[in-house]
Structures are given as structure tokens and as C-alpha cells.
């Protein structure tokens, strides 16, 4: 179980990344590696640019400068076609699930599938839907509409929708935000199951320390636009840095 970064292949590799919105300098020289097969938790307070960071990885936002290498490809330099090819390898779980609310659960799952696996026979399509619904434990929700689902169920369907194309890398944006502690821990479990079952490498963005502890093989702390500390959960919070200590205390006492 001991993970040594040196001998492992980096699937995401970010160097010296800068991103500002007008005068709001959000990322100021970020360096980050995601290694094959690991769950990397990115911790940070609200508004520190965690979402911006993974949106840059998925090519939804353009960085101002720096390199963003994903699966051996330089994301900011890709043309539309190359970017789409790369995105098929990425799963993005949005903070508010972002289910298509005009479509049923099944249609949500079919949407990416029918756009990319046009010639799949109907039986194979149905099987894929069943498989991912089973993976997130929501087989019975197949014909429901998103509005009928609870927050936790929406999260699961959002994750199922990304799994259907069997991504190599998963990006979770605040997977437990807005959920009660029990549902949160179920989602944490799901994240670990996805890692085992689909052999994904994941970046999990959160400010929830329980989530970080339960899912993270490695934790990186985003503070003031750079990664201030990185290591196992205990490594990071053993740090003397006042900002990290106050983050810890606030989470577990506040």
C-alpha cells in the first residue's frame, strides 16, 4: 500500500500555472502532479480557485500561463477535436451534479453514450446503463426525473453519467458539499469504490476534512493561490502553518 511517487507515472502534471480574472489573481504559480491510480484531495477554503483549477484541467477555462499536461497532452494547446478526444478520458462530477433536468435519469446517462457510441446495439446500451446505475447503487432510479432525486442521489447519478464512458481520470468538485454526514460518507465510499472498480486516478476537491481523510491517498492544500503543503492527511495537518491549523480547527470544531 506504500505509495512512492517517484516511480509512478503522472497522469496530470501542472507546472507554474497562473490564472486571474481581471485583477482577481486566483492561481499564482500552481504545481501539481496526479499519479496513476491515486485519489488526490485538493483542500482549500471557498473561493481559493479549486474549481478553476479542475476546469482548467478539463479545458473549460484557459490558463494565463503555465503548462497543463493531461495524459501526455498539453491541454491549452489542443484544438477542438483533440480536446474532445481527451475529454472522453475525463469524468467530471460537478458541484451541483449538473444533471440535465429536462431528461430522465436514463436519458442523462444515455446522452454521452449516444453521442460517442452511435453504433452500439440497443442491448449493449441498456447493459451499460444498468452497469453504471448498479455501480452507484441506484438501479431503481432509472426512470425518475432529476427533480425527484435527493441531493445525494443526484451526486450518484452525476458520477454514473461520467462512468458510462469509462474515464481514466475522475475530477470531483466538492462531492460532499451540501450533504448530511451520513450521505457524505456514502459518497466517500462510492469514490473509493469507483477508484477500485474502474481503476481511475482522481482529483477530489473539497473543504470537508472527513471527505479528505476517507478518500485521499494524498492531500494537497491550496492556500493563497499556491499549494502550500502536500502529503498524507496526517503529514499535512501536522504542519505548523497557522493557516493550515486554523483550517483544521474550523472544520472540526466550527
Amino acid at each position, binding site marked *: 500500500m506504500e505509495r512512492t511517487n517517484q516511480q509512478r507515472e503522472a497522469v496530470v502534471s501542472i507546472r507554474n500555472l497562473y490564472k486571474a480574472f481581471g485583477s482577481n489573481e486566483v492561481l499564482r504559480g500552481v504545481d501539481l502532479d496526479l499519479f496513476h491510480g491515486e485519489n488526490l484531495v485538493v483542500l482549500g477554503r471557498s473561493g481559493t480557485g479549486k474549481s478553476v483549477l479542475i*476546469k482548467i484541467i*478539463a*479545458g*473549460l477555462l484557459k490558463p494565463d500561463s503555465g503548462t497543463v499536461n493531461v495524459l501526455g497532452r498539453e491541454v491549452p494547446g489542443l484544438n477542438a477535436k483533440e480536446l*474532445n*478526444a481527451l*475529454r*472522453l478520458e*475525463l469524468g*467530471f462530477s*460537478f*458541484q*451541483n451534479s*449538473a*444533471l*440535465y*433536468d*429536462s431528461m430522465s435519469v436514463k436519458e442523462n446517462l444515455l*446522452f*454521452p453514450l449516444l*453521442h*460517442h457510441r*452511435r453504433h452500439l446495439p440497443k442491448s449493449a446500451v441498456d447493459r451499460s446503463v444498468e452497469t453504471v446505475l448498479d455501480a452507484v447503487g441506484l438501479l431503481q432510479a432509472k426512470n425518475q426525473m432529476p427533480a425527484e432525486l435527493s441531493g445525494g442521489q443526484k451526486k450518484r447519478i*452525476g458520477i454514473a*453519467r*461520467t462512468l458510462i*464512458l469509462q474515464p481514466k481520470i475522475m475530477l470531483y468538485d466538492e462531492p460532499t458539499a451540501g450533504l448530511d454526514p451520513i450521505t457524505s460518507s456514502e459518497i466517500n465510499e462510492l469514490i473509493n469504490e469507483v477508484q477500485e472498480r474502474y481503476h481511475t486516478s482522481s482529483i477530489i476537491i473539497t473543504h470537508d476534512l472527513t471527505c479528505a481523510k476517507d478518500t485521499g491517498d494524498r492531500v494537497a492544500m491550496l492556500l493563497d493561490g499556491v499549494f502550500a503543503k502536500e502529503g498524507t492527511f496526517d503529514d499535512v495537518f501536522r504542519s505548523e502553518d497557522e493557516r493550515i491549523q486554523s483550517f483544521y480547527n474550523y472544520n472540526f470544531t466550527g
Partner: protein
Amino acid sequence: MEGDRKRRFFISKRVDGFFIIFSNVTSFIGRFFKEMFRRPLEWNEFIHQCYEIGYRSLLLITMTAFITGVVFTKQSRPSLSEFGAQSWLPSLVAIAVIKSLAPLVTALICAGKVGSGIGAELGSMRVTEQIDAMEVSATNPFKYLVNTRIGAATLMLPMLMLYAAFVSMMGSYLDISLNEQTSFTTFLQNAFSKITFLDYASSIIRSLVFGFTIGTVGCYQGFNTSGGTQGVGRAANSAVVVSMFFIFIEEMLILQIINSFR
């Protein structure tokens, strides 16, 4: 301060802003035409949108068109009677309805119902990251959402316009049959005697342009929504106002152009 301003704006904030919007809209429309010929064609969504547009506006168009037909007939009768030209009533109504009322009424109702609907729908999909979700699943949200809606609006407006004209004429016939005992065939013969092919063409072309305008403005506002729930309201609202504004300008321009062919 002064130097700062010079650096940031080419002419002035307002004029620059206008040109930025103008170039954004132009590239939005350009992208619509570019995507039009690309696969997949998204037929299902296109048909679904055609249905949605009809469904959203049909009741209101039927009521408005019918009442317009009845009221216009009633109101025109006294003036025509004065000249003893009452028998020209169907013809007058047909000219008014087909050449001007049906296209305009249809366009304004659709700007209100369809334009705001598209603006709000795409706007809420933008702020709830549904459009981003489509993008990261390597599908093409522009093609799927925008092209289908603009295409459907462009196709449906002329159809709804013809339907509105038909309903208006029925309203008119109701009133005429009650007052003048004209037979339906006489009514039709009289009504369409003064309408030329160019009149139909002009109304259909205007409706196509209005439909394209309503679809484009609604989609542009919705697709570029920012600022959460408030932004969705703003997008829906400005979709209506802006498309009505363009509809009036286009009405004038196209009439001028077509009349120069007469």
C-alpha cells in the same frame, strides 16, 4: 487614471462595449452556420424543439388571431359602409391580415413566449453548469442546444404565421356571416382576390427572419448568462426586449426592400 483609461478602451467604454457585443453576436451567428453542416444532425432534438415552440405559443396565437380577425372586421365595417363599399370588407381584412397583422402578431407573441422560454432554459442550464457538463462529455452543446432552437424557431414562425392568418380569416368570416349573409365561397373569392404571390412571399420571408431573430437572441442571451439565478431572469427578459426591438427594425427594412420590387 487618464492614462489607464486610454489603455483599456479603444474609443470609450460604451462604444467599445457595443463593438465587442456586435463581434460576439456575429461570431455566434457564424458558428450557427458552421455547425449546421456538421454531424450529428440532432434531428430528435430539432423535432422536439419545433413541437415545444408550437406548444408554447399555439393557444395565445389562436386567441389573439381570432379576436384580431373579428375586431378588425367589426371596426372596418362602418367606414366601408359609408362609401357603400361593404362588399370589399373580406378583401380589406385579408390584405391587412396577410400582409401585416399575421406576421407581426405571431412574431411578437413568439418573442414573448418562445424567446423568453429559450433564454430562461439555456440560462439556467448555463448557471447550473449543465452546458459545461455537455462540453466535458465531449458533446457539442452549441450544436445540440443552439442550432436546434434557432432552426426550429426559423421553421416554425412562418407556419405559425400562416396558421394565425387562417384563424384570423375564420374570425372575420364569423363576423361577416352574421352580418352580411355572405357565403363562404364568396367570402374566400373576395378575400383572396387582391392578394398576390409577392404578398405571401413577403410575409413568409419576414416570418423566417423573425423566427431566426427570436431563436438567435434567445439562445445568445441564454448561452452567455452569468450571475446565477438573477442572471437567468435577466437573460429571459432581455431576450424578449432585444428580439422585439430587432423585429420592428427588420419589419421596416424588409418591407422597404420588397416594395422596391413591385
